């Protein structure tokens, strides 16, 4: 299956898998994985106000310029969306973005790149559950760390661009296959449910007794 076909069949429209043509040297992969393992519980707590967290993150990675940051947010990340997994992924991404090792090498424009990364990582969680981000599985930790670096157009320190892409392809292939399988499964299920619900007999429905 080619990349194009894969994306064409992928209802989540993920950009996580898009090939990267170039990247800049980034932080040590291990440092980012350690940062991921050290994710404070408060980051994935429901009390976190994502909008505030994103603003704080942008403040950290870049002095806020004269541009309309809120406008950027509305354009690039749907922070009003209620998709809980995506919001949790965005929160963890903010935590990773503010790692000193990342901030030190983040190319300009930093705010735009950060927001783009938040969006891409919110897509990753659709196929790689948050629980596996925060599990003891080092492969999954590496996958998350590499996904973030790619989202920022960075690559692990000490790797060439080609090597980094090869390793990404290798480590993400299982997830990618599973993602396509799950997406196709859900799409078929959603279509079947919609078809059943729209049938005339389903619409006639059954007698209702209470008024809740």
């Amino acid at each position, binding site marked *: 299956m080619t990349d194009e076909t894969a994306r064409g069949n992928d209802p989540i429209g993920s950009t996580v898998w898009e090939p990267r043509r170039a990247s800049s040297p980034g932080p040590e992969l291990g440092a980012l994985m350690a940062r991921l393992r050290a994710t404070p519980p408060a980051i994935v707590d429901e009390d976190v106000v994502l909008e505030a967290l994103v603003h704080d993150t942008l403040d950290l990675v870049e002095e806020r310029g004269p541009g309309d940051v809120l406008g950027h947010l509305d354009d690039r990340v749907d922070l009003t969306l209620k*998709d809980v997994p995506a919001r949790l992924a965005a929160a963890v991404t903010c935590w990773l973005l503010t790692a000193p090792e990342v901030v030190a090498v983040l190319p300009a424009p930093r705010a735009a790149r950060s927001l783009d990364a938040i969006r891409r990582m919110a897509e990753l969680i659709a196929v790689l559950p948050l629980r596996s981000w925060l599990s003891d599985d080092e492969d999954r930790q590496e996958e998350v760390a590499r996904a973030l670096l790619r989202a920022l157009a960075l690559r692990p320190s000490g790797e060439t661009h080609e090597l980094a892409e090869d390793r990404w392809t290798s480590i993400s292939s299982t997830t990618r296959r599973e993602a396509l399988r799950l997406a196709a*499964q859900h799409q078929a299920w959603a279509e079947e449910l919609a078809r059943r619900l729209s049938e*005339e007999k*389903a619409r*006639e*429905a*059954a007698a209702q*007794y*209470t008024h*809740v």
Partner: protein
Amino acid sequence: MSDEKAAASAGPVAPAPIAADAAGGAGALPDYAAMGAAVRTDAERWPTLSPLGLDALTRWRQTPHAPIWVHECGDLLTAEDHEVLGRRRAELLEPARAGRGGADRDGDDPPAWVEALVDRCRRHTTFFGRLGATSFDQLPMISRADLVRDVAAFVPRDQPLDRVVQGTSSGSSGAALVIPLDPVEISTELLLLERLLADVGVDWPHDPDRVGLLSVVDQRQAFTYASVLTIRDDQRMARVNLDPAAWCVPGDRESFLAAARPQVVTGSALSLLALARLDVRLDPLALVSGAVDLTPAARVELEQRWQTTVLDLWGLKETGPLAVSTDGGPHVVVPRRVHLEVVDGGGRALPDGECGELVATVDGNPLLPLLRYRTGDTGSLTWVGDRRAIVGLEGRAPVSFRAADGRLVPSVDLTQQLQHHGARSWSVHQGRDGTVVARVLGGQPAVLREALCTLLGDAVCVETVPTPADLGPGKPRRFSSALDGAG
């Protein structure tokens, strides 16, 4: 959530034309031609109904003074379903089991069935599979918006869909939500009512001379139907609209109701009050109010009018019944799988006694189990005996508008028009001078204004807004009126 609380839509809980509108009157919603949505045969509607029962049903449909029936609905129950429901009835009514099914004071918190539900949802639903959470305390809360976006992500893939029926609710966002319902679960509500009545000492016998259950609405347009309850020995039931235009001639309404002598009457607080103000003798065994808040004054009026038991049943269309108040006191969790939490604005769990948003976990509808579902209603948790209960339940306040000619117009009538003409969200307010300002997302302002003017008169202003956020933060209070004192 019923259509009284929210709105009309396709399906059996949707409105159909009243008599005048069916003839093309102002405000008629063309989607709902009389009997236009009725497509099944009677044998499909009541698979176990005997020839004798069918004869009785035919007579019931044609009974003197009957309203203009605009829909048909059966219980869809097969012989196998009857076996399942027979077992459920025994479990629900067996005294030794009283109190089980929800949270027991001395039981686990959350109960064991909750963790089993988490596991099932993780394995069989897209949404919880993506989360990968393995225990209840790892779960985020979900909201109606999650269901609106992709309800299929919450429907377990191990469930057959061949018998699914539509349930609809418009909810606080104004966006209609179509949910899958299961016929057996719908009829389980009847058994639940039997149990709730038994708990307060009300016997509900299968009396063939009386209508077993009458569901009443009072709105401009509504589906109505004559039906029978096969799990109650084919006893008759009906859904009727008290709006005068839903009847053939003046007086039919009162004559029909008096002849029906319904044992149990269900409705919203508003429709039950409308019924109470009719000059008719019914002798109901009980009234069951739902959909909107039953105020203390309304409860007193209903109790005094009928000298009978009044239950205030709280729940949502998505969740089914959750809790009941039998005496105006706390709403006690009903005996089904219901686990409640109360959270603050940031989603943090609150201890007993502190007021916040009620969050429900339910395992009733096999097609839509819900974990940590925000109800949008508020209250605080307590215990009544060994049962979980809610103190100060709020959030279902009904709103009526005053038309230019003085008529009271329930908000559901506005919802029907707004939704029909393409509005997705809205905030409608009537000022002290009677002027109505509708701020609306979606739809054409001129068309919406014309539709609202047919209900309220000319003092209507419609403004469109570009985003839901422009309607205000949090749960939009879609309707408010400075003139609302009715009910």
